[in-house]
């Protein structure tokens, strides 16, 4: 009887340990400034309510050859083609799903004016995998972002 009780207590303890490890993942761990895989831009991920968003805060090539700040010239909506790229909110509606994953979001690529479904996975505190896809995740591409800190 005592052995069974201790075995049961052991099992409960292990289960609580596993659940506690899950709860330790921080939904806000994705917040901060990230540089994309090409090194051409930085995106600041922030929180509004329960969802996560991202905006372009730095561009490697900030101006056109004419010296003017770059705008969203490839936007399919002509009325938005004068919007500055710097400060453009191009990621939206991400929801934390646990296990360091943020899903159900959208990402806009100003290079081609296309909108994609998107999910993010925090591989480690300074590495974020951002996968944009069309329809199913199979038809997509993963970009590896690196966390940026003030030097």
């Amino acid at each position, binding site marked *: 009887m005592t052995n069974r009780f201790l*075995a049961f207590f052991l099992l409960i*303890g292990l289960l609580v340990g596993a659940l506690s490890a899950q709860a330790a993942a921080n939904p806000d761990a994705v917040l901060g400034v990230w540089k994309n895989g090409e090194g051409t831009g930085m995106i600041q991920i922030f929180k509004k309510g329960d969802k996560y968003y991202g905006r372009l805060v730095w561009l490697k090539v900030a101006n056109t050859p004419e010296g003017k700040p770059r705008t969203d010239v490839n936007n399919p909506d002509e009325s938005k083609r004068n919007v500055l790229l710097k400060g453009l909110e191009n990621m939206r509606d991400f929801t934390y799903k646990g296990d360091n994953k943020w899903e159900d979001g959208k990402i806009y690529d100003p*290079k081609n004016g296309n909108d994609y479904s998107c999910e993010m996975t925090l591989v480690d505190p*300074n590495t974020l995998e951002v996968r944009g896809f069309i329809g199913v995740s199979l038809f997509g591409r993963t970009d590896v972002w690196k966390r940026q800190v003030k*030097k």
Partner: protein
Amino acid sequence: MKYTYFALAACLLAGAPAAAQVTDTTRTATPAAEENFDAFGDANAGTTDYNTQKVLYLTPTKLISVGYEAQLGYNLSTAGPLPASTAPAVETKVNSARGLRLAFNAPVISRTDFIFNVGLTYWNTGLDLANAERSPYFDKLQDGLRTTGINTTIFNPIDNKHFVILQLNLDANGNYRNFQEVQTEAYTFSATGIYGWKPNDNLQWGLGLSRTYRAGQLLYIPVLLYNRTFSPQWGCEVIFPPGRNPPQLRHQRPAEAGLRTGRQHLLPGQNTEPGSVPAPRRVEAPYHLRAPALGFCVGIGPGRPALQLPQRRLPQPGPHRREGKHAGLGAFAVQKHAHQPAVLQYQPELG
């Protein structure tokens, strides 16, 4: 006693993660929007940026492609040195040549530092020949010609300026009706490797080597890749020598011109010498004006217009199989070389 220790271990396991739940507000807080981000750098030292597999405004890769080709009639003749057991060169008329083209491309792995695509292709051409009894080769062509293939493409960026491309193709070419009829000789394996440079987002070029076939012979030839964007409306995508995916002038309001090259097909059952099998070779050399946004492509070439629905466009190297005797024309003729498979080449007429 033993179980007491296990129980203590379980308590420690449960307690440790709970003790670790400390929110680091300094790491998760968002910085001010007016921050000078020029002063920011990688949190981890030694990270690498990678270039992408495309230049700006490059023709996108199509995941699924369906096309149908229909060609007007032309004359077909056999010519060249023939085995003594066959009839002299004869001619017939091809009333029509038409067929379905299917292609599927799946990005198996698509990451910043590695891309691995797998593709499947199926090209079928049905030929309607008049007086096919004039030559055993014509009779076999009545079964049509088809190519079934699988290909893989690997793009591996080394850093933000250099990359490596590797493409492998396995094709079965012939007049088979099912895979049980495919002979070993019908399979061709091609490969291309390219080392490239990408100095900026508008230019990408590379040099490499291709394992390919020409006139039944295995060859290793150099390859040039050149992708350049001149403006949002114009650019070029060049693979030289041209393979299945031809050099293209690219226009954003889309009209593309290209030179399409052909494949070599195996016709079983017409052995003329021990160890040899005739293999007709099809070449299509007219330039094609393509307007994919309008839903069709029109082929323009000397004397042989063709209507063709949009095909897959891939800025990827392919096996080199350019063959033919007349510059700017599709050329078909039978050739037989000692100890090599005999080949049938088509010779459409002008006008």
